[in-house]
């Protein structure tokens, strides 16, 4: 049977009391890709992941994993490795004992443990009690645990929290390797863009429970959506005209910032001349993914205000 998407949610929502934490999310994750879920704290990423791992029941909507509808106590979960929120362990047991318990729950050979402990660089600490572990080491152990059983899907909630820069790089490379060598599909979340943009194939932007936009990383990087910062003489006289001619992002002092996606500098100048807007100076700004994200969030907030 051909599996179209590894994860497919339809109008997935979650309410706690009167608060809608996840709102009508339609998430689609292709097999063998890394999908990065990006959003501020409280955007609903963790709740979404909890629903995908059966820890929370959706208030509305449906989830399909590997093409099959997900229900509580589903056997599908045996093919999923997950790390939700800060990884927790039996702190009075050693790292190896903790993994052993997980191996037994997942019914996989104990010999698998060594591979993952080595892969995450904590094999030499295997006999240490987890209560002696630093946050970074716990994070590594949590990742090792999620890899047990070689799952087809990995769901990782902020997996790089607490890691040092070299650790972050190492984990990023590991995730890419898992995708390339084993075809593992990975859904990871973060509120830090930099963590995601270096490894994800697709980025989904979440804001206040809504999956606002989905973009392929190639699309985002190639496009490098540009902004033009134009200093205008007598700006207040031309505001309305500018808004008609350009997609205005910001206005301050004598300057207007316009989105110029698909618009060359020559074209921009031509439009100014045609509309008799006197320009003092113009700068082309390349917009980073971060700028794009911030702009998008600002747009959403503005929309809410209206």
């Amino acid at each position, binding site marked *: 049977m051909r599996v179209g998407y590894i994860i497919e949610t339809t109008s997935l929502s979650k309410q706690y009391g009167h608060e809608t934490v996840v709102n009508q999310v339609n998430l689609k994750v292709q097999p063998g890709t890394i999908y990065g879920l990006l959003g501020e704290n409280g955007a609903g990423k963790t709740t979404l992941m*909890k629903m995908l*791992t*059966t*820890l*929370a*029941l959706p208030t509305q909507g449906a989830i399909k994993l590997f093409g099959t509808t997900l229900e*509580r*106590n*589903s*056997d*599908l*979960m*045996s093919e*999923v490795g*997950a790390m*939700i*929120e800060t*990884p*927790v*362990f*039996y*702190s009075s*047991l050693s790292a190896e*004992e903790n993994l*052993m*318990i*997980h191996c*037994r*729950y*997942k*019914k996989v050979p104990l010999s698998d443990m060594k591979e993952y402990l080595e892969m995450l660089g904590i094999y030499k600490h295997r006999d240490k009690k987890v209560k002696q572990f630093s946050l970074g080491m716990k994070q590594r152990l949590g990742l090792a*645990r999620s890899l047990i059983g070689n799952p087809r899907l990995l769901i990782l909630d902020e997996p790089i929290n607490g890691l040092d820069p070299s650790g972050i790089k190492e984990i990023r490379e590991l995730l890419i390797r898992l995708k390339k060598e084993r075809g593992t599909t990975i859904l990871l979340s973060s509120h830090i863009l930099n963590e995601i943009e270096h490894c994800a194939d697709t980025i989904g932007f979440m804001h206040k429970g809504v999956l606002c936009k989905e973009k392929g990383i190639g699309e985002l990087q190639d496009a490098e959506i540009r902004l033009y910062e134009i200093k205008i003489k007598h700006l207040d006289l031309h505001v309305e005209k500018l808004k008609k001619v350009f997609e205005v992002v910001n206005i301050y002092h004598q300057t207007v910032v316009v989105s110029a996606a698909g618009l060359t500098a020559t074209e921009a100048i031509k439009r100014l001349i045609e509309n008799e807007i006197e320009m003092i100076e113009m700068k082309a700004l390349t917009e980073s993914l971060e700028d794009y994200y911030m702009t998008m969030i600002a747009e959403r907030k503005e929309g809410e205000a209206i």
Partner: protein
Amino acid sequence: MNLLRMEWVKFKPGKILLTFLLFNGAAFLMLYALGMSTGGMAMFPDMKVAIREINNSIVWPGCFIFAGVWGAKIFIQEFRNKTITTIWASGIHRSRLAAVKLILISALGILATVLSTLLQNSLLLLLSPYTYYAEQPMSIVSHMSVAYMGAVGWSALCIGLTVLLAVALGIRSFSTTVTIVAAMAFGVIWAFQLGFPGTYFNVESVRLLFVLAGLFSTGFLMRHIHRLDL
């Protein structure tokens, strides 16, 4: 079986045994001190009555607390520490895991009660010539009877099942304290031998009601756990 073995690994039998020994050591010291504190006056008409009263007011309430503490550790702490999320997220059937835990807690309560009772009672009988619980000492052999073993077994069953009610109360608030305090309260009620003579609600039927409440609460607990969001 696999799930039960995992619980065993997590909570280490050595640790359970150690707390069991500490609990019994403390109980014995207390009972010995109590037996020496009357200044030569016998507290009970005979050792049979003495043992029955000691079991009801000290040993069995103590067993309630022991089972409550382990119930909180085995069940509630997994929720508090959120270690249960990792297990559930790996596809383990929620109700099956809960059932295994409840069986383990119950079994621990029953076993601890039987062993503690036999141990404490044997020590009391052995030391009866040197304590002032009763005028006449009594041998272990003459005390052991089918009725005595039946009473111990019934009490152990009551404690093992009633403690499930304490666990069910604790899970509502994810609180180990609630579980332990509830177990203590049941122990106190047991010690007071609550009952209304001349009515249907005598001591034994009140205890039976607690047992039934414990059994019913597991049904609610299973349902609650199946729907629980973490």
